[in-house]
């Protein structure tokens, strides 16, 4: 299903949790939903043929007090990308996992937890991945308050 039709479907079926949906440019759309509607939006996108997960990104916005999580998914037939986004508060960020919808987001979600602290409920393996084993608990490198310091 191409991106224009996807945006129409989403506006029709997810009206209660939808915050924004538009086509940014050729073959690229972005959809913003509330955290409660994330799983329903993901299942709808998978029905529309978007079943190839590309990446999961977390961006820290301390001035707005939130962390935005963006799932980029691709459709092989339509050669298009949809960015599914939602925002959670910085103090207790928690989202349902989308592993059951797209198998490929397993390691992406694990890395987002490790770098930003977003907890994915239902993910079976949220533990140390890329950082060293004795890294301090509760310190997330990609958050803006973590500053890089040269060591010598």
């Amino acid at each position, binding site marked *: 299903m191409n991106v224009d039709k996807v945006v129409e479907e989403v506006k029709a079926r997810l009206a209660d949790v939808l915050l924004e949906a538009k086509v940014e440019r050729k073959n690229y759309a972005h959809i913003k939903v509330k955290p409660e509607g994330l799983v329903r939006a993901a299942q709808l996108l998978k029905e529309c043929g978007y079943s190839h997960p590309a990446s999961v990104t977390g961006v820290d916005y301390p001035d707005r007090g939130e962390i935005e999580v963006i799932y980029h998914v691709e459709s092989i037939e339509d050669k298009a990308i949809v960015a599914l986004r939602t925002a959670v508060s910085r103090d207790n960020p928690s989202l349902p996992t989308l592993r059951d919808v797209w198998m490929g987001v397993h390691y992406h979600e694990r890395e987002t937890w490790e770098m930003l602290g977003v907890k994915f409920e239902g993910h079976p393996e949220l533990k140390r991945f890329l950082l060293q084993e004795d890294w301090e608990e509760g310190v997330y*490198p990609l958050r803006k308050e973590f500053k*890089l310091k040269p060591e010598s």
Partner: protein
Amino acid sequence: MALKPLERIRAKISNWKPIKDMLRWGRAWSLWWVHYETGCCCPEIMSLVASRFDHERFGAIPFPTLRECDVIIIEGVVTKKMAKRLKMIYDQMPDPKYVIALGDCAITGGFWWDSYSVVQGVDKVVPVDVYIPGCPPRPEQILHGLRLLQKKIMEEG
């Protein structure tokens, strides 16, 4: 019982200069190294192994078993997660052993001077014998570094 006089003879012979020189020559011209590629310097090592910049004519080959190697060539960046394992690998090599630090990242941290997970210089973890700078160094530079190590071994006391 007959061992003690044999031991004394062995100690006398191995301290004799021509024998010592022969042992050092043998060590310098058959350096078996551990292939420890952590970073971007590994393509140049691949070029070194192939026949254009052949390093096997100097007697060096990469060898997978740690217990039979003399040299460890640390190519590239060493992270804090890796540093503990590097020490374990270094300890497993038998004496006499040598270390070559290849590339800017192994010498001082290179591009990653302010990273939260990089050890700034591998000589904080293991003692280094030869430093080969470059990002990445050309295979000719690595061969020059090997020759410097050979000279160092030949001149050891």
